[in-house]
């Protein structure tokens, strides 16, 4: 049994991002007491088959969490209206430098699957 197996699933280990669920609403960024989340996005028009007019969707360009600033309160996970953020029981992301603790979209998405 590894350490991760013995840690409860909802432990405040690391925050996983599901970029496809994120609508760039900025609620997590604004609610974060530690100001550790940065988000940039742009709008794209998507034309769905059968739709009368194209739909505007926000596409994530940048989403970073600075774990050097994060205090693991979980407010971002709680306030996300689209469940794009979720706790994962992983702790193995120590770094030798402060910049190494800043995780981008790819790293945050790699922490387990938010939606099965």
């Amino acid at each position, binding site marked *: 049994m590894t350490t991760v197996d013995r840690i409860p699933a909802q432990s405040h280990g690391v925050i996983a991002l599901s970029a496809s669920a994120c609508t760039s609403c900025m609620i997590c*960024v*604004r609610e*974060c007491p530690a100001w550790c989340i940065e988000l940039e996005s742009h709008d794209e028009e998507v034309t769905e088959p059968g739709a009368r007019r194209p739909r505007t969707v926000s596409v994530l360009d940048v989403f970073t969490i600075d774990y050097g600033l994060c205090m693991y309160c979980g407010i971002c996970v709680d306030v996300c209206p689209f469940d794009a953020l979720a706790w994962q029981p992983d702790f193995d992301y120590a770094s030798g430098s402060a910049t190494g603790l800043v995780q981008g979209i790819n790293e945050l998405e790699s922490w387990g699957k938010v939606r099965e």
Partner: protein
Amino acid sequence: MREVDQVFWADEFRALQSQGYFFFDFLTAYERDSQLVVIARVANPETKQSQMLTAKVDAQQNSMASISVTYPGAIWHERETTEMFGISFVGLEDARPLLRRSMLGRPPLLKSSVLAARMLKPWPGQPSHRKQQPVGVVDDWLQL
């Protein structure tokens, strides 16, 4: 949790210790509606029961009676509370600062203390089309 008058703060803990509450857990303070409150918890190891007491700190004097004579374990907590909230404990013999060696500036955990980090880092949640005040900053907060 039981609120006691700050005048009887030390007496209450002396009484609790005589009733078997030998284990000192913690002491700290918090600020609510501009009122500082000191909070401490002690436990009875025999009965596994605990008592949590609070007392409002007198705003004029900004001091409390120390309980460190009754509970020596409270010394560290009272030193920390002095440092972070600016409350002085009367009767605390070892009042050396723990982290803020110079004790310059305002106690950092008071809500009126502006954190330097809030001025240095731009708020990442600032909307592009209008100015918005982030949560948890003083009313006249201005981003440089």
